[in-house]
């Protein structure tokens, strides 16, 4: 184990895979001479040369599509799209081509492609540069989408993505690049399609991915020490496929769930998580699944507005408190740790409060 940043873990893993396999090459804007907008590829042009580290023109559609074509002939390109916002320009090549080619031709051609791209927000980059649109990829059969929240997962999932024979959208996050954590020496790929319980607990299931999985762990630790609330934290890690079993098993134990996401609430990633929980754990939920997400506006530049629009730790804690209170209100128990055997209808539907009132 060594302690390193998320950025370092990505850099070292790219390098290790390029050393391991000559078919791995990097393509993207400013990844060579400029060493990457966020310096993930620093030094790799010097080490591997322009054939394997390709600075591309500003042409997201064609260089991403070219990576798809190269993958069809057996190369294993790792494309960097500078931020996920720009990936909209390559979406046709990703959704209509990379994700379709294996199935559309009856399984005759694999597309071993990785697209690395950071999401984010909170950097005052304004409306077009602060979006989290991983949904656009997680929605598409044929795509695989992973979203590591720690340096260790950044390494393990990048190894898995590069060695996978399908197109993988590898979601990074601007706010995570400088975060540190332990990373194993060995190159052991993670299993794509599986979530991880990063903190076991019994009072409530807190679910996140990418930056929000990070926030989830912090908040859980804080509430455990300050208020003795015992939260189980799930890091989704893989958005497609989605590991519903791990989520449902947890909620069947805790009877309550809060979902955290950095994208917009309506139709966001959390909608599927909440819908799945409300279905699979229907008889075990003691309170509605709560979602914490961005305000649904074009992100303003001004700091106070941007801050107000982004989910904060305080928002997460509020959501947890209100959810536990709702549990207590249905189970009669008031200790935050209360876990009733199941739903009691006591004073529920009989309280004739009109639903659907916006806060």
């Amino acid at each position, binding site marked *: 184990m060594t302690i390193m940043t998320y950025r370092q873990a990505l850099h070292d893993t790219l390098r290790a895979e390029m050393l391991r396999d000559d078919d791995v090459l990097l393509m993207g804007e400013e990844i060579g001479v400029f060493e990457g907008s966020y310096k993930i590829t620093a030094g790799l042009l010097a080490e591997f040369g322009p054939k394997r580290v390709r600075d591309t023109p500003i042409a997201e559609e064609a260089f991403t599509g*070219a990576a798809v074509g190269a993958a069809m002939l057996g190369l294993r390109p790792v494309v960097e799209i500078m931020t996920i916002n720009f990936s909209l320009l390559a979406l046709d090549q990703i959704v209509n081509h990379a994700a379709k080619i294996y199935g559309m031709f009856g399984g005759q051609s694999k597309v071993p492609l990785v697209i690395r791209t950071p999401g984010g927000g909170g950097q005052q980059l304004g409306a077009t540069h602060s979006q989290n649109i991983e949904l656009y990829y997680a929605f598409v059969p*044929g795509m695989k989408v992973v979203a590591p929240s720690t340096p260790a997962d950044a390494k393990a999932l990048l190894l898995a993505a590069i060695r996978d024979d*399908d197109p993988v959208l590898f979601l990074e996050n601007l706010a995570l690049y400088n975060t540190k954590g332990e990373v194993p020496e060995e190159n052991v790929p993670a299993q794509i*399609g599986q979530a991880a319980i990063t903190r076991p607990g019994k009072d409530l299931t807190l679910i996140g991915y990418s930056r929000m999985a990070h926030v989830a762990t912090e908040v859980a630790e804080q509430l455990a020490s300050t208020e003795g609330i015992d939260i189980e934290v799930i890091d989704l890690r893989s958005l497609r496929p989605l590991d519903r079993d791990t989520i449902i098993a947890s909620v069947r134990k805790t009877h309550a769930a809060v979902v955290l996401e950095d994208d917009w609430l309506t139709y966001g990633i959390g909608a599927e998580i909440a819908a799945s929980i409300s279905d699979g754990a229907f008889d075990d939920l003691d309170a509605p699944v709560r979602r914490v997400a961005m305000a649904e506006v074009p992100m303003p530049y001004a700091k106070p507005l941007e801050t107000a629009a982004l989910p904060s730790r305080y928002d997460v804690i509020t959501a947890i408190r209100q959810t536990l209170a709702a549990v207590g209100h249905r189970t009669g128990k008031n200790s935050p740790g209360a876990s009733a055997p199941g739903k009691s209808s006591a004073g529920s539907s009989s309280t004739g409060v009109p639903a659907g009132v916006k806060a």
Partner: protein
Amino acid sequence: MVSHTRGGEPRQRRSPAARGKSGADAPPPAGGEQLTQYYRDMLLIRRFEERAARAYTEALIGGYCHLNLGEEAAVVGLMAALRPTDYLFTNYREHGYAIQRGIDPKRVMAELYGRADGVSKGWGGSMHMFDLTHRLLGGYGIVGGQLPLATGAALAIDYRDGDDVVMCTMGDGTAAIGAFHESLNIAALWNLPVVFVVINNHLGMGTTIEKSAAEPELYKRGAAYRMAAARVDGADPAEVRQAAAVAVESARGGQPYLLEVMTERLRGHSVVDPAKYRSAQENERLKAADPLHTFAAKLAANGILDELDVEGIEKEVASVVAEAAAFAANSPSPSVETLFDYTYASPVPNDSRRLPGQPLFEPAPLPGGASA
């Protein structure tokens, strides 16, 4: 006739060893036998497409169906310029290309019928034919979608110092889309072994080239990328082959190429388009310009082909097409069990294999075990 524009010097000239004999000139003019073969190939495409059109009206073929009628000489001439190991990326109007790449017409027709023996196992249909052994790397239905892919395939060849070439065909209307610009620029910038071919039938669906391109002489756009380019008449397969051979050898030498082939689309955009937007006189002109007849006449005039030969070839071709249709009709539909087999190449846990009527989770059993 062929008009030319010169490309720039390739920035990084490949060693002939690595790239094979580079910048070769056109091959020697085709002899009588070869010309007869071209005619046979053109006729096969013609009759195959006519049969496909009939099968469509008989509801044996579904979806969109675009035919090569009128473009037979272009298809035959272009494919004749490729080595078997060269790659082809094309669009949704690709039945003739598939056959010319050497794929059995039976499997092409079976794909149109959506059967398990089709080139794409029935998953692709008319627009999406693919065959790795014959290096047809796909017909694509998204206009311009094949250009970045072809560019990337050329990159892979170059990456491995191979000496194969990628040919990427498209229609004239496709020259207006962004991927055209992005792809040609990257191909020229990186000296990739790719030939971009515009099949200019001067129509999108009903939109004329004059209404879709500010520079309707499309080969001239090669200059925007210092890419060598030429325009050739698509009515004569030998001429097309000569021009294509120059383009292909240029690409093999590390100089990508833009070739514009002037053709006519004899019918509507797809089999369901009556092409009302064409005048009777325009249709007259088309009949007169039908490359199948003009080429046959040329061969007859040169004493290469007589009435009898033509009849013989007709018979041959007719039986090939009949067999193809029979084969397709008797091929089974792909089994519904295979529905979830082609979502991912690398198996992965939690992949959804749910049919629309199935629940996301098994419903909890009823008390007393009565089942929902």
